[in-house]
């Protein structure tokens, strides 16, 4: 099974040189740590920054300079600031190449639910609905099952939706799945997870191709 860093590390392989990337809160944020040194990416923070840099050194925090998770950050050379309308404008116009975000449920149709649990305090969708509705390439990073052991890869989402028909790839602690033609397609599995276990823990339609990669 992959831990959070393992998931992030696997997703980092999907990041290509020259990509503008938007990273959601949680596991997606960790992806930045695993992007190889020989490729360059520019991170977009949807609060209005292209070229997000690492956290500042202690004592150098700037209250005016935060990322979309409200964390203090720095900028890298070539960065730019802009207002929220332009920020989502570039997301809507698909200038951002890749969006990586977490989810509570994903369906075999590519629907995603990640913002609201009925009966629990609703925090709001933030920019998630905008990102999933517009991004040309979205990868979901998530645990395969919830704490009670129920699959989060479903025939259809049970929670309120964030977006529909938008997710094309999911990376979980168990493996990597493409979503197409109304099914999850197992592309790779964690080396210590059997295909049978994945089958058992995937409630949505699962296609097992002849060749399945192994993540070591």
């Amino acid at each position, binding site marked *: 099974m992959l831990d959070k860093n393992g998931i992030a590390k696997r997703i980092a392989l999907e990041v290509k040189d020259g990509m503008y990337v938007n990273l959601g809160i949680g596991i997606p944020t960790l992806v930045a740590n695993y992007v190889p040194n020989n490729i360059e990416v520019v991170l977009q923070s949807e609060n209005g920054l292209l070229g997000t840099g690492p956290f500042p050194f202690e004592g150098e925090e700037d209250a005016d300079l935060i990322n979309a998770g409200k964390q203090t950050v720095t900028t890298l050379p070539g960065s730019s600031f802009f207002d929220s309308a332009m920020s989502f404008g570039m997301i809507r116009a698909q200038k951002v190449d890749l969006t990586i975000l977490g989810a509570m449920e994903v369906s075999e149709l590519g629907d995603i639910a990640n913002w609201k649990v009925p009966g629990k305090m609703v925090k709001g969708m933030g920019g998630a609905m905008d990102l999933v*509705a517009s991004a040309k390439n979205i990868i979901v990073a998530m645990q395969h099952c919830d704490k009670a052991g129920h699959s989060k890869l479903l025939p259809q989402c049970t929670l309120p939706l964030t977006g529909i028909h938008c997710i094309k790839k999911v990376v979980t602690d168990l493996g990597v799945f493409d979503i197409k033609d109304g099914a999850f397609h197992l592309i790779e599995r964690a080396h210590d997870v059997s295909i049978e276990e994945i089958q058992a823990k995937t409630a949505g339609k699962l296609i097992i191709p002849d060749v399945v990669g192994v993540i070591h």
Partner: protein
Amino acid sequence: MGFNKVVKDANEACQGIQSGMTLMLGGFGLCGIPENCITELVNMKVNNLTCISNNAGVDDFGLGLLLQGKQVKKMISSYVGENAEFERQMLSGELDVELIPQGTLAQRCMAAGYGMPAIFTPAGVGTEVAEGKEMRVFNGKKYLMEYAFDADFAIVKAWKGDTMGNLIFRSTARNFNPVMAMAGKITIAEVEELVPAGELDPDHIHTPGIYVHRIFQGKQYEKRIEQRTTQKRA
């Protein structure tokens, strides 16, 4: 008079704001929020406000201060999760909350400032956000029609401003401030540094003064940090 838009302080700037009005307030989290005007609104004890703001502050800072005083009837925001009093009022039904995707929120402000009555947005299609809204297909993709906001006052915070109301924002404290500045029937700007007209480079101005009705230099700025994340020096 001419174009001198300078008022003495937050008190003078907020003249005319009344209970029941709709206010837009700039900022993202606690970054770039109009601290002085929020304090003044608390002092004024106006209530039944509808507040359009991306977030709702924290319990003891930002818009949380208005919530503490039960001055807010309705919040229109994209994310409100940092605030226990907010949660209490929402669950008890005291506070009405309309959650809007962040980009839609921004573009509904921009629409008002650009004289566009409505815009088309893909955000929320197929979700509960789409309920009751007109949907339309362009080039095979579905969009919701969303209306421009209509706010009595917009209250924004800039880094520098001049006496004619021209504004320059700093770093990510820009966020919603420019689009809200364009969108208010009356726009109030508080700035960290107020300079005479002519001192700002006309190429660097983010919000032309035509959009700003009142401007003042804030007394002080706490600029509280919500998530202080750092790295240690090697």
